[in-house]
Structure formats: structure tokens, C-alpha cells
């Protein structure tokens, strides 16, 4: 017989009351777990969807006073035959502190070229990263795979009078028109896309690029910091954030987080209240019992240990159950809440340990006053109850 024997036996033999307390706290924890997991899963889904909107960091050469536009975005001092960034420099982007937040880097080389007597802009890209970044592109025909494949904007295809599967000759070299883009309404419609290496050769810019687009997104991604970090790594380039896109994404994520935290706060408060009221009621019901403990020589600290140990055991159980039920709730709710059907539930050990830790902290804090109250009870209550 030790003090914990009293706590454990009380819990075991007052099952209904302890079940009520456990359920009360469990509901609170489960709600928080569901909210946090849902929010994180939805954020992840939104991030994934937002990636489809393209890049949010642009790397261009330092301005020399001339300007041009690309997709409505100012590229600073870029002219077709002026300065370029070295392609090798792009590898340095992967060495920045926040490199894990980068989802795609898409280098480009731009240049004017004549095809079948038509002047067009040739854009050299890495097709895999370009297609990953521009998920809104719809390609008629096939996606380009080899260095001899071309991808044409819809207007460029019309002007050059080619369809997927046709051949095109550029500077004496034969290329396959692998695919044609569906109308995008952007500058992409009038461009001819080739693989980066081929385009560099055709334009005489081997090892150089004109600009690079970087897609970086995660919840709370420090885009500003990343811009600074990239600028430090590539001092000759001008690195700028596409603020509108970034701010829009972060704002959407921030709203989800705020909603989640506000709800979690309310639930934490209600959960604490349930624990407090139940423990207080339990202590008041046990006035005589506590009086007996005090009469037979239990110290105040012994009484507190009994009450707090009960609270800790119930809280731990509520934490475990709350996590399990919360994750179950999140799994059920996610398909209805997320924007896409491909949203995945995020299993995170931090949430598991956090929910158990929170339940324990909550249970102990809410039981602290009842435990203090119990420890200060007058032992003569045991005799008065006779």
C-alpha cells in the first residue's frame, strides 16, 4: 500500500465518474488534434495547389537600365544579348539555409531566333521542372522528353503552321514538335520552348541563363529570408519575391492557422473547466475521506499527491484516447473539408506527444486548485460528518 495505490483504486472503483472526466478531457484533446491535423493537412493541400500557380521568387541579372517584361512581370535589366547568369551558379541555391523549402528551380535562357522567316522568341527550359511548376499548362500531343523536342505556344504553332508530330528546322537542325500548349492567355502562347542545353547552343549562350524561377512554399515559409539568402549566394543576380503571390499564399495559410488556434484556445478553456469542475466536485464529495486521511496522519503534500496522481492518470488516458479519436475525426472530416480529393492526412509525432503532453498539463493545472483545496481541508470534517 502506497499513496498511488489509493489513487489507482479510486479510479478503478469509481469508473463512471472517472469515465466522465476522461471523456470530458478526451473530447477537448480530440477536438484540438482534429483541428490541428485538419489545418495542417488542408494547409499542405493548399500549398500543393498553390504550387500550381508557379514561381514566387525570380532570379534575373542585375539591371543595366533596359527593361523587358515576362508574363507581365518586370525582369529588370534584361536584354536578349546583354548579361546572363552562369548556369553553374544555380547550384548554389540548393545550399541556402532554407533549401528544404524549395520545391522547384526552373532556369531559362531567352533569345530571338528566326524559324521559317518568322522571328520568334526561343525559350530554353528544363522541361521537367517547367512542367512541374506550370501545372496549368495543357499540352496537345506529347510532353517534350528529348533534347530534339520542342513545345510551342498556341500562337507560335499557328504562325509557324505546325502541329504535334511535325518537324521544324532551326539553324539547320531538325526538331520534333512534341506538343502544343492550349491557349494560356499569357506570353507563353507566342513562345517556342526547347531544352535548355539546345537553346543555349542555338543562341550561343552555352552555360548561361537569362533568368530562373524558383517555387518555394510551405506554411510560414520565410520567402523574404530566402530571397536574401539566394542574393548572398549569387551576388551578380537580382533576386526578387513575387510579392502578390507570396502574400496571398501566406495569408490563406495564416487564416487557417488563426482559426485553428482560436478554436483550440476555446476548447482548451472548456476542457480545463470540465476537469476543474469535476475534480472540485470529486474533492468536495470526498471531504470525509480526506478528513480521515488527515486524521490518520497524512500530510497536506500526501493529499495533493493522491489528487494530482489521479488527475495525471486520467489525463494521460484522455491524451492517448484524444489523439486516437482526434486523428480518426480528422480522417473522416478531411475529405469534406479539403479543396481537393487528393488531400493527405498528416501523421505527426509532434501532434501525438503534444496532445498527450497538453492533456497532462491541462489535467494537472486544472486539478491544482482542487488538490490544494483538499490538502487544506480541516481534519475535523471527518469527525463532524459523523
Amino acid at each position: 500500500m502506497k499513496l498511488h495505490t489509493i489513487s489507482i483504486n479510486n479510479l478503478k472503483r469509481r469508473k463512471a465518474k472517472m469515465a466522465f472526466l476522461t471523456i470530458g478531457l478526451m473530447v477537448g484533446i480530440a477536438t484540438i488534434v482534429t483541428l490541428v491535423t485538419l489545418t495542417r493537412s488542408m494547409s499542405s493541400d493548399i500549398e500543393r495547389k498553390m504550387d500550381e500557380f508557379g514561381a514566387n521568387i525570380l532570379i534575373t541579372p542585375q539591371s543595366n537600365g533596359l527593361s523587358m517584361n515576362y508574363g507581365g512581370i518586370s525582369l529588370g535589366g534584361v536584354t536578349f544579348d546583354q548579361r546572363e547568369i552562369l548556369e553553374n551558379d544555380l547550384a548554389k541555391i540548393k545550399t541556402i539555409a532554407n533549401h528544404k523549402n524549395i520545391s522547384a528551380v526552373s532556369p531559362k535562357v531567352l533569345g530571338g531566333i528566326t524559324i521559317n522567316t518568322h522571328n520568334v522568341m526561343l525559350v530554353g527550359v528544363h522541361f521537367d521542372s517547367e512542367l512541374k511548376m506550370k501545372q496549368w499548362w495543357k499540352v496537345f500531343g506529347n510532353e517534350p522528353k528529348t533534347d530534339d523536342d520542342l513545345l510551342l505556344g498556341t500562337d507560335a504553332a499557328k504562325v509557324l503552321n505546325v502541329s504535334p508530330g511535325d518537324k521544324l528546322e532551326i539553324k539547320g537542325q531538325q526538331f520534333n514538335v512534341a506538343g502544343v500548349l492550349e491557349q494560356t492567355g499569357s506570353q507563353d502562347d507566342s513562345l517556342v520552348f526547347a531544352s535548355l542545353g539546345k537553346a543555349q547552343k542555338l543562341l550561343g549562350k552555352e552555360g548561361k541563363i537569362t533568368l530562373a524561377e524558383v517555387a518555394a512554399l510551405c506554411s510560414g515559409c520565410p520567402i523574404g529570408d530566402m530571397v536574401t539568402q539566394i542574393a548572398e549566394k549569387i551576388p551578380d543576380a537580382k533576386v526578387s519575391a513575387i510579392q502578390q503571390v507570396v502574400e496571398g499564399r501566406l495569408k490563406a495559410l495564416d487564416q487557417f492557422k488563426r482559426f485553428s488556434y482560436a478554436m483550440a484556445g476555446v476548447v482548451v478553456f472548456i476542457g480545463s473547466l470540465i476537469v476543474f469542475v469535476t475534480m472540485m466536485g470529486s474533492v468536495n464529495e470526498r471531504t470525509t475521506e480526506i478528513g480521515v486521511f488527515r486524521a490518520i496522519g497524512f500530510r497536506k503534500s500526501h493529499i495533493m499527491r493522491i489528487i494530482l496522481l489521479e488527475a495525471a492518470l486520467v489525463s494521460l488516458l484522455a491524451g492517448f484516447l484524444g489523439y486516437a479519436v482526434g486523428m480518426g475525426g480528422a480522417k473522416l472530416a478531411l475529405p469534406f473539408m479539403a479543396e481537393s480529393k487528393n488531400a493527405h492526412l498528416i501523421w505527426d509525432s509532434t501532434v501525438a506527444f503534444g496532445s498527450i503532453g497538453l492533456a497532462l498539463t491541462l489535467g494537472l493545472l486544472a486539478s491544482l486548485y482542487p488538490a490544494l483545496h483538499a490538502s487544506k481541508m480541516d481534519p475535523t470534517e471527518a469527525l463532524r460528518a459523523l
Partner: protein
Amino acid sequence: MALIEIKNVKKQYTSGDDVVEALRGVDISIEAGEFITIMGQSGSGKSTLLSVLGGMNHPTTGEIEMAGVKLYQLPGEKLADFRAQNLGFVFQSFNLITYLTAIENVMLPLAIVKMSNQAKKSAARQALERVGLGDKLDRLPNQLSGGEQERVAIARAIVNNPHILLADEPTGNLDSKTSEEVMALFRELNDAGQTVVMVTHNPENGAYSDRTISLKDGMVLGQA
């Protein structure tokens, strides 16, 4: 020197504007090994005297000296420690813990004592055998009769071998036959050397004790 010295103990309660004097200068001396019965009508102050004697109710004035220790001069939780080491309580309503078995109830005072669980069980079993309940160790209180519950309460009070056994109306909730059995048990414990101080309003119980102290209106009326 007497085991217990109660010197000019007064106890006042304030109820609104009224001051109730529960004890009005009580002087009692109890020797080791004595069986004392404190008798009196309801409101005579006998239960208050027992709670003061048990170190649970500070007297307004006066002094209690027990085994050479001035009880109410003990600092902080030392008074609780003193109760744990020197006193055993038997309450009128038994006050057994409903969710603990008979043996667990008896082991309760040992829960705060540093000794092996085996030794605690052994001591509790012996105490229960001493009160004739060696075969009902694992019964919950609601599975025991009133007399058996009283015996468990007595076993709990003696398990730590206290210097003094304090009992408050121990037969108050029992029929006459069971009352006689319980009183015989107290007598038996006293014969074995246990000091017993019992509060009762039943004159028949006085017959089992060595000395009866009568209280009326918070004062000692007489001793016999």
C-alpha cells in the same frame, strides 16, 4: 508523568455574532495503559475534546501534552506526523474508504510509512486477525456488516501500534449485541496494554473502562 496531560483547555467557536464555548477549562490527566470513557449528553463538548486531544483542533487556550510532547507547539506538518506515529482513530461511522478492501483500509496509515509492501500486508493481516476478521481481508466495506466494518476501523486504528487509541462513539451505529462484542474487543486491547480514550453517551460502555469522565456544558462534571 502521565501519558496525556490536558491543562485548562478552552475551545470557543464563533457562529455569526455568537460565541459558543465548547470547552470551558478542562483539566484531565491520563496514565499509560488506562481505558478512559468520556461521557456526556449531546453538546457537552466530548467530541470537541476528542478532536483537540487528537491534534486536529487547536484549543483556544490551554495546553495538551502527550508522551512528553506539547502537541500544539509542533510546527507545521509535524502535528500530522505525530498523529501518524502516536494516535489511532476509530470513528462513529467507521469512515472506511469505500473503494479499498478491508486489508487496504487497514494498511492506509502505513501508506506513508517507509516499509516493504510485504511488511505492510503482514501487519494489516495481523491487525485484522486480532479483531477476528482474518478471513475477510479482501472484502469491500459494503460487503461487510456494521460490526465487521467497526472491527476493520479498529484494526486500522491499531495497525501502527499507536500510543493512544481514540474512539468517538464506536458503538453509535451498532445493535446492542454487536456493541457488546466491540466493547469487549476494546477491553481486550486495553488488557494487552493499549491506552484507550473513548467518547460515548452510552452508560453501559462505561462499565468496560477503568475510569469515566463526565462532561457537561464543556466542563468536567466528575470522574469515577
